[in-house]
């Protein structure tokens, strides 16, 4: 049986910053449960001595030189912002963490 509980879905959605309704939570828990049970077969395929591949073609040491390339103008930077003010991106107040 799947370990994907509604509470876990709620927690994951909060980490992923997606608002979910109770109904969505139930539905996602069911769907994800099935998917997770299926993909969990990977754990059977591997043992400790297999190395992980995170990049399909082995490469290393790719750098750019420390030189300045053209930036966007302020106007361009803000051109697709939902809201801006005073040359900056404007957002609602941030949750008080202090």
């Amino acid at each position: 049986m799947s370990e994907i509980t509604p509470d876990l879905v709620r927690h994951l959605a909060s980490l992923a910053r997606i608002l979910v309704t109770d109904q969505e939570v139930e539905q996602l828990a069911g769907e994800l449960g099935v998917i997770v049970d299926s993909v969990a077969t990977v754990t059977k395929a591997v043992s400790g001595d297999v190395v992980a591949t995170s990049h399909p073609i082995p490469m290393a040491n790719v750098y750019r030189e420390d030189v300045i390339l053209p930036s966007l103008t302020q106007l361009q930077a803000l051109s697709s912002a939902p809201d801006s003010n005073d040359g900056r991106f404007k957002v609602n107040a941030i949750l008080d963490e202090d």
Partner: protein
Amino acid sequence: MAKEQLMSYEDAIERFEVVIGLEVHVELNTVSKMFCGCANNFGSEPNTNVCPTCLGLPGSLPAVNRKAVESSIAIGLALDCQIASNGRFARKNYFYPDLAKNFQTSQFDEPIAFEGEISIELETGEVFMVPIERAHMEEDAGKLTHVGGATGRIQGAEYSLVDYNRAGVPLVEIVTKPIYGALDKAPELAATYVRAIRDIVKSMNVSDAKMERGNVRCDANVSLREKGAEKLGTRTETKNVNSLKSIENTVRYEIRRQAFILAAGGKIIQETRHWHEDRGHTSAGRPKSDADDYRYFPEPDLVPVQPSKEWIEEIRQTLSEKPALRRKRLQTAWGFADLEFRDVLNSDLLDEIEATVSAGASPQSARKWWTGELARLANAQQVAVQDLPITPEQVAAIQRLIDSGELTDRIARDVVAGVLAGEGEPAEVIESRGLKIVTDEGALIAAIDKALASQPDVMEKIRDGKLQAAGAVIGAVMQEMRGQADAARVRELILERAK
């Protein structure tokens, strides 16, 4: 919020063992950013040093700045770290509006440098070896401005504004292992350690190292345990403590606060805290929780950093003298007393004095200018003495004129004022302000005679042996000469007249 209760520092130290850990973020002074070609430049108009990559626009990709890797390796070497043969970037995932991609490209389990140490000498001469766990590369976030509300703080703000000019500026985060055994010296050790890191990155010229600009920032971890206990206590992490004094105060405050709670049988909450310099205390931020699941994974848009032995050796060759060694060398060469030298270090004027000396001034005169008159002027203007618009060469030039008798100390101060006021080089100031010393003895004697005429009893007093009576006449002469006379010479002339 209610004021927190504290134990006295002495009692706290008596009862508990202090364990500290420090995370120092150093902003590198590369020309361009860590992962894109935007200028790494402080103080530009908002959102002008930005591009698709550092704005996190869909489709953009990072590309690693070679110089930033080089500087990171250099810092690792300066801290006697091992350099990773296979370092990797990783994504640290969390949402925050100053983080353009909502993940920070950082390093996780494969940092560029690890397992180092640095020796730190306290004021008493006591030396601590601080163990370094790792130094890793990452990118800075943008800058938030909170608008509305009373104080510009995050609390009560109506909205916030984001400037991404700083987003993607290269950072090296240096993390210590837990530091044990500093006892009552823990606060001082913390501050001295951060100063040492700052001095190292500054002397290597890999960072501008200005703490007031946030080039060097510190997170301080503090925990206490009962003396003799094995298990580490719960720690708190105080974020972004940005001056040496604040670091010392933060650690001291946390020791006292935690000691009170523990002594009362309470529990320390593992949390992030903030230091308020103005109010002299830390306050709780959010507790550590599941929300801190950063879901690190290897950055798939970048390939591993595998520095060759040759490259590392090449970087090692460029490492400058270690600050501790340099300090020893300069103190000996200059013959400064310990107290004098500490003064220089505390006001962070080693570079300026060294430059002034190499421009021809004697070490003592250079020291007096920078820690005396110039420090006073800077203080009055509320700027850092290093930021005054006068160069070590100009200071040395003025000192040369004093040494040759062309300026008195007093006139020299006027020359300095002129230079600071933007009136040009010392010679130009002397010329335009008419500050040349009056060496024409005829003019001096005439002024003395004029002063004596209005104070006829003075000569008598001098002849009676009351030499201090000459003072009034000297004053009058100096006033007549608008200060541009050598007072000692005026005194001699008066005494001669009295014979």
